[in-house]
């Protein structure tokens, strides 16, 4: 798999404060990676280094093989900041037009309409940014990030202002982008969302990468829970494969079995454990 984003031993210090203490991370082409961590963990700093907005104190970051921050890297990149603002006097169509010019995209009005349609703003092309709700602006921000067909999207809390329907729209959009081979690094506090959509998850705490893997790898077996005539019984060390034998044993012992649940720790449990707050 080609690498869309590669960060190698990235460190960043602000005076005596070490925001990143040597983080290495890769995002492959068409891969959707969730970046999790508590406030102040260094997630946004890492994303900003990848964008070239912040210079690393040490280590390297590259986008599609080009040094982060270079025009070549920016050509392969789309970015939505956590705290962003667009000129409120521009219409949605004008804003995308401006970013097409800046990105050197020759997609014209067809690209603009396609992007607005993708984020559910097809009817708002002529609406001024200043007249849009925060959720609409966030969706417009995602459309803006996709101008020029980037190979990597860096989305910093892209759904924080969206309602559930808006979040679903963005989830579908991310899945569609993955299908098109676009890599996405999704920085989000919404664990359920990350669990639903991401191929891999990286957890950062106190400036370090403390866990990484697929959501399945990070969440672990939590035993088997059986509801019987004698009450709910928990077999903590059991796995899914043990469930039939447990049921047979219980029935043989004269108990009626009503329900069997194979338990797994959630991504939330794994996250809390990884960041040391379990």
């Amino acid at each position, binding site marked *: 798999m080609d690498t869309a984003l590669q960060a190698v031993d990235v460190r960043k210090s602000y005076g005596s404060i070490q925001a990143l203490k040597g983080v290495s991370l890769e995002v492959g082409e068409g891969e959707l990676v969730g970046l999790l961590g508590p406030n102040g963990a260094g997630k946004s700093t890492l994303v900003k280094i990848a964008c070239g*907005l912040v210079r690393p104190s040490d280590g390297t970051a590259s986008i599609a093989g080009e040094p982060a921050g270079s*025009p070549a890297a920016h050509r392969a990149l789309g*970015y939505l900041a956590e705290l*962003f*603002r667009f000129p409120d*006097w521009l219409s949605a169509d004008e804003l995308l037009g401006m970013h097409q010019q800046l990105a*050197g995209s020759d997609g014209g009005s067809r690209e603009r309409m396609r992007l607005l349609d993708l984020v559910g703003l097809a009817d708002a092309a002529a609406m001024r940014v200043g007249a849009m709700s925060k959720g609409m602006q966030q969706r417009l921000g995602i459309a803006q990030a996709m101008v020029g067909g980037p190979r990597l999207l860096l989305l910093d809390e892209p759904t924080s202002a969206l309602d559930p329907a808006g979040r679903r729209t963005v989830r579908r959009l991310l899945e569609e982008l993955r299908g098109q081979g676009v890599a996405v690094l999704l920085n989000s506090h919404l664990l359920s969302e990350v669990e639903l959509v991401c191929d891999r998850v990286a957890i950062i705490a106190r400036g370090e990468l403390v866990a990484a893997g697929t959501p399945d790898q990070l969440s672990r077996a939590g035993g088997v829970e059986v509801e019987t005539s004698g009450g709910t019984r928990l077999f903590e060390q059991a796995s899914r494969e043990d469930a039939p034998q447990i049921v047979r044993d219980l029935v043989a012992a004269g108990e009626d079995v009503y329900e069997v649940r194979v338990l797994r720790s959630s991504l939330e449990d794994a996250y809390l454990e990884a960041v040391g707050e379990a």
Partner: protein
Amino acid sequence: MWIIAVFALRESLRRRVFLVVGLLTLGFLALYGLGTWQLFKSVDEFEPAIEGVEAPTVAGATILGLAMFATLFLGTILAVFLTLGAVRGDAERGLLQPVLVRPLRRRTILAGRFLAAAGVCGVYVVVVFLAATVITWAFSDWWPDRTVQPAIQLAVAVAVISALSLAGSVVLAATANGIAVFMLFGAGLTAGLLGQIGEALSSRTLDRVSDIVSWVLPFEALYQAALAAITAETFGFTRLAINLGPFGGAESASPGLWPWTVAYLALVGAGAAWAFARRDL
């Protein structure tokens, strides 16, 4: 760079600062017209004590000099408000980041913003200066010895102020930058006044202080040169009378002023680009 410049121009046209500066300008020109009319009513009745002094020339040069100061001040307000938050201010509001991640060099963004601000402010001061000149002529039949040269010098003076304000916006928060630029503007004008006082008192120290500040802040030297240019071909007793006035001690441009101004803009631009390239946003 042109995309940034055009966008900054469009943005500036939509800002309220244009409304404020436009109203201030109309107010200034109306008051200037009234003052000029009253002045020349008096001048027409005035009999010079010394034969050979052209009273309309002395009065016209003096009041147009005052108009040039006001024009430079209004141009400075415009320049400062168009640039004071161009980098740090826009970054703090989240406006800059979406642009910075596009395939542009940061110095290109600075250059685009400078072109837009200097262009708008330059056109503004030229128009206001010419309007004041026409108003003066309408009430007095006096026309300055040179028109294009002082107009260009005023335009370049506000370009220098735009550059300083834009450079300041890289390192200072918007309010602090605005205050700093106005303090520089005040320092420049004060140095100019010191120079004129120094000339009147034959004080070499004051002259030297004024000269040094004029090199450090060349917008002051350009303003002085523009003042001097409006009576560049006036001689004799009229010249002497003008020299006694508040703008009479204005220094004409030395041969090094234009090359130094170009070098100065390049230095300020290079410094701003260097600081911007290293700034975390």
